[in-house]
């Protein structure tokens, strides 16, 4: 139960395990390079709901159900739910939590919510307070666009540095028992503000925070970038990732081929997203699909995941404030040697159907 604190990093002695993971994305994300990896690809952005806000909520509920189902648990076995999203007063998380009879911890950390929720969840599990904790985030292009930018049908051009908020949601179930990849350490980041006031250039606003957190990870755990199989950042986008590589080189760390940015990974170049994806769902869905599946099969053994967030609101930027950035990091390790079989598309659909059924059943029970 003891934990060792080294400056910003907490190293977990009790190895909290990731036992369930689920990702759900919108149709545009489903056409991207990782489209086949996701558990469920929505056919349209409404997801059978009347408004985009309700669709986002349903996505989050779906993700939480899917992850618990994959962990072979009932939602009632989950001891705590840690959730975050982008909307004002984190309504998506709170309203999604309404469907569950679980203690709920709502967090706001902009796009870095996934790493923060996993960090909090893993700390709780490591300390022995809870056995199973579900950590989830979601984002939706249309709700974010409505809140932060312009109406959807307005005929304007997106500035060349802007990013595309991903319609995606991901959930991870962390448990004190079970097999699978475990969370080795978490680094809670500092808020960094380098005076970027362009709302359409979030990558540049978040890169310094990512640099700060990355350096403290390497410093605290006495590692170098080459020690990791994969280093992924949340949603810096093309420009932000280039800036981060430059900043890290100035600090004496060279990021090589094992470094990737989820915003860049999410879409193909010709999908017209300019600098790439953003939003908390962007890294959450890739982390909960590609990264964890590869960790489970043992193809990846040591992954550093840094989720970045731009902590702005429409009020603050209208008042001319600059955009502060935040980044949280988690290190996930795997000691799996055997190769398990990959899930086929048929099985994937089966799981999705099962989740759907359970969800409706659960809701009718509630009523």
């Amino acid at each position, binding site marked *: 139960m003891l934990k060792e604190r080294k400056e910003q990093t907490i190293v977990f002695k009790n190895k909290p395990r990731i036992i369930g993971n689920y990702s759900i994305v919108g149709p545009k994300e489903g056409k991207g390079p990782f489209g086949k990896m996701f558990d469920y690809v929505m056919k349209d952005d409404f997801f059978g709901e009347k408004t985009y806000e309700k669709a986002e909520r349903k996505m989050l509920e779906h993700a939480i159900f899917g992850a618990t189902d994959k962990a072979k648990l009932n939602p009632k076995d989950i001891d705590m739910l840690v959730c975050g999203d982008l909307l004002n007063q984190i309504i998506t998380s709170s309203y999604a939590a309404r469907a569950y009879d679980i203690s709920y911890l709502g967090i706001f950390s902009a796009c870095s919510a996934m790493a923060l929720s996993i960090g909090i969840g893993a700390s709780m599990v490591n300390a022995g307070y809870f056995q199973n904790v579900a950590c989830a985030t979601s984002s939706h292009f*249309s709700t974010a666009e409505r809140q932060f930018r312009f*109406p*959807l*049908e307005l005929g*304007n*051009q997106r500035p060349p540095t802007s990013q595309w908020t991903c319609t995606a949601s991901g959930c991870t179930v962390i448990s004190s028992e079970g097999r699978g990849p475990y969370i080795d350490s978490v680094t809670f980041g500092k808020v960094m503000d380098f005076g970027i006031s362009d709302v359409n250039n979030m990558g540049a606003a978040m890169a310094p925070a990512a640099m700060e957190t990355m350096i403290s990870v390497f410093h605290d755990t006495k590692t170098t970038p080459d020690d990791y199989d994969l280093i992924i950042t949340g949603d810096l986008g093309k420009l932000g990732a280039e800036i981060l590589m430059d900043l890290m080189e100035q600090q004496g760390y060279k990021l090589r081929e094992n470094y990737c940015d989820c915003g860049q990974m999410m879409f193909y170049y010709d999908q*017209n997203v300019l600098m790439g994806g953003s939003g908390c769902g962007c890294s959450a869905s890739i982390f909960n699909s590609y990264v964890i599946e590869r960790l489970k099969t043992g193809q990846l053994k040591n992954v550093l995941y840094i989720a970045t967030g731009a902590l702005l609101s429409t009020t603050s930027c209208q008042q001319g404030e600059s955009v502060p950035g935040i980044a949280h990091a988690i290190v996930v390790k795997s000691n799996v040697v055997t190769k398990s079989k990959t899930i086929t598309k048929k099985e994937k659909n089966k799981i999705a159907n099962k989740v759907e059924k359970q969800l409706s059943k659960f809701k009718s029970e509630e009523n």
Partner: protein
Amino acid sequence: METFLTYLYVFLVGGFVCMLGQILVIKTSLTSARILVSFVLLGVILEATTLYDYIYSFAKSGISVPIIGFGASLAKGAILASKTKGVLGVFTGGLEATAGGITAAVIFAFVFALIFKAKTKKS
């Protein structure tokens, strides 16, 4: 031949005005609301200095279809009414001249907003 020339002028002047707007977008990264505001202001100034009528004499719709025309009608209405009705005209003239456009925009926006649903951007 005359119609052809008129349409050519309309195309050239209208296109040029829009290109000015695009230069503003690229150079200053203004949002569309600010572009519209600055062009309305430009229209009012052009009308006040009587330059608008000179451009309109050959460019026709090329200058009246861009939002400059809206600003010019506002100013024209206010100027004419201030001459006939005095101080009251200053208050009523502008909107009186543009009432058709604003009312149309409100009515159609209301009706179509009720009928259609906003869709996610494709690009």
